[in-house]
């Protein structure tokens, strides 16, 4: 049987039809069980929303947010997501942690203007073994936290569930993903970056983020400027990893991607243009 020799003429490349792609994506989502069933939450940052295959974070799925323990940025990022979500979905928001420390007067400033009322629907769950101090919480306390998280995710009712866990092994992550699919809430798990994250070929979270604070541009008197974060999408099911530097507008509370200028500030750029 003779085949083509060498480089036969390639068939003319056809641009993929966008509508076909979208419908295929929807079908895959329906099979894969996230996004289509429970809706999505747009992050409010245009570039990130455009990059994500669902146009936002899908509910009913597990999302991991990695960060450093000494950094408040992952917490604030989670608060921003919860504020956006609670503006559109009724339902209480649960936050599980072993050692607490959540401070609503600071949390409610994150999120779009006027969405601060989500802290009224917030229930803080202190998940640890009762009667034992924090230093002995390692084994049983962690198990209690994972158990509480699974129970909460499985319940239909909460709009979102956020949890601060130390480490998450593969089996637990898989169970939590199944529980989230059953309950339909937006599941956000905050944890520290583990050493074998990059090596984990079969990770189960639908998206994995890494949020850390970035130096802000000084304001006029030398104080800290607008909040600035480096958000990296490490892993996304159906999308490519990417990083952004975002800055918060103090008046509206919305985030925007900053242009990568020498000092990284769009305000300085605008000022330079003006004057």
């Amino acid at each position, binding site marked *: 049987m003779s085949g083509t020799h060498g480089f036969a003429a390639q068939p003319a490349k056809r641009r993929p039809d966008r509508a076909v792609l979208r419908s295929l994506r929807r079908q895959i989502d329906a099979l894969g069980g996230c996004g289509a069933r429970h809706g999505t939450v747009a992050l409010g940052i245009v570039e990130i929303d455009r990059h994500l295959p669902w146009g936002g974070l899908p509910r009913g799925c597990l999302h991991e947010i990695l960060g450093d*323990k*000494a*950094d*408040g*940025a992952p*917490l*604030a*990022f989670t608060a921003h997501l919860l504020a956006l979500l609670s503006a559109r*979905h*009724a*339902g*209480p928001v*649960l936050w599980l942690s072993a*050692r*607490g*420390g*959540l*401070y*609503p*007067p*600071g949390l*409610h400033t*994150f999120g779009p203007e006027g969405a601060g*009322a989500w*802290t*009224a*629907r*917030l*229930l*803080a*769950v*202190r*998940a640890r*073994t*009762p009667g034992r*101090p*924090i230093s002995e919480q*390692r084994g049983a306390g962690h198990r*209690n936290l994972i*158990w*509480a998280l699974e*129970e*909460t995710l499985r*319940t*239909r*009712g*909460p709009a979102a569930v956020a949890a601060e866990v130390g480490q998450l092994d593969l089996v637990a992550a898989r169970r939590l993903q199944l529980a989230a699919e059953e309950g*339909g809430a937006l599941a956000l798990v905050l944890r520290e970056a583990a050493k074998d994250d990059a090596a984990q070929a079969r990770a189960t979270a639908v998206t994995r983020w890494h949020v*850390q*604070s*970035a*130096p*802000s541009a*000084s304001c006029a008197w*030398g*104080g*800290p*400027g607008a*909040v*600035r974060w480096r958000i990296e999408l490490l892993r996304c099911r159906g999308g490519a990893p990417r990083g952004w530097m975002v800055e918060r507008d103090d008046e509206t509370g919305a985030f925007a991607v900053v242009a990568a200028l020498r000092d990284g500030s769009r305000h300085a750029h605008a000022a330079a243009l003006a004057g």
Partner: protein
Amino acid sequence: MRRVLSLWLPRFATDRATRTRPLWRARPFVITRAEGGRLLVAAANARAESSGMTPGMTLADAQALVPGLLTLPTEPVEDARALLLLAEWCGRYTPWVASDGADGLFLEIAGCGHLFGGEDALARDLLERMARFGLAARVAVADTPGAAWALARFGAANPTLLGDGSYEGTMLAAALGPLPTSALRLSSAHVEELRRLGLRRIADIAALPRAALTTRFGPGVARRLDQAFGRDFEPLAPHQPAAPDRVRSAFAEPVRAREAIEAVLADLLGRLCARLAERGHGARRLDFALYRTDGTVATASVGTSRPSTDTRHLARLFAEKLDHLDPGFGADVIALAAPLTEAFAAAQTTHLAVYGGVSSATRGGLDVLAPLVDRLDNRLGAGAVARLAPVDSHLPERAVARRPPFAAAARRPAPWPARGPRPVRLFDPPEQVDAVAPVPDDPPVMFRWRNVLHRIARADGPERIAPEWWRTPAARNTSKTAPGLFPDSSSDSPDDARAPTRAAAADEGAATRDYYRVEDTEGRRFWLYRHGLYRPGAAPAWFLHGLFG
């Protein structure tokens, strides 16, 4: 043999009111009730009665008699409840206490007199204690309730004791004869009719033939007469104590297997919840006890955040506790008790909505989570799930309090007071750091926290937060953690090898704090404060209180 004590509280309504207002005892004071658009005097205290007030006159007339009269509206429900409490208290004399109208009690004291040194001593003891309560009282003891009633209200002496249980007719006739006819608990219409016929005393009626009385006045008068003289038995219905909410099952063979215990639990739950539901109550706390063959008891308890009679939900709560319940060689008796129950509020069916699907979840209320909250509370300890509510306090650690998730205030959330910029995470207690700062008021230029050095690039501040001078030092120190923000945290350090030192100031709450919002060279923002004002020669203590986003 029967001995009945009648306790009459002639001014119960006013006495109850003056118990909480002792200064009104010496002044004329009446209780008013509204009738047909006018205010009438329902009851008057002793001072008012001596000034000429009588129940039934209008308030306007009464105020004309005594200007500056003190008045209170009538509270029949509260009076009835107080009388019920008094009846329960009288259980110290006898278990057989019945109420008698709105201002009296009947006590069956046959056989109880000797415990108090005789009936006379019992009656005097009762009078003395009533006087201590501030209640004017009259007591009479007789063989029948009718006679005791009459003597308490119309007898001369206080206390009056008559007879010895033998229903001696002549003694009763001699004692009751001189009393007016109203002492027989007749209606005022009958009394008036009798008076018009010239019959004013009981002796007059007792002499009449029975048939004539019955035809003229109906059976009521004759019956009262018979009851007073003991010819007709008048029963007294005592107050029953509420049956405890407890069900138990006993077994011929000891029960050991887990499945058997679960089945018994389901059966007991069904019986107990049915009994509670009849009363309109739900269980808030359940105690499950296995009485083992070796004489010991194994117990497990669960609590719920809302009253519940849902057996499936309660069985699920018990499921985790049954793992730790050791039946030993078997249980002979298994009991389930509900020590704490609560009446159902109007909107209770919402907790079942969680099994109903997504439509109920969109309601947005916290009620759909009641079963989940119960499970979390039972495994993680009571109070594990809490709503974070604002507390009006300048001190940041006291500005947030943990409240029960389903409290009524959850429906009207209060806004967070806008003070300065606040961090997203607060450390409780604040962690001490080593900071280098130019004196006296400048923000630090670098600080070391958890063995990591942070160089500060930008800083904002200071925000001065002064201690709450209106709280005593003892109160400041003991409750320096927010009342509720994990008050039982044992303040242990995080999992680091070398724990930072605790905030070890002598009087932590009393020093002024200057807060600085600082940003280090990597962009992380911290909330530091200097504890106390700068003093030359003393190194100031710096603490890290929170992280900004």
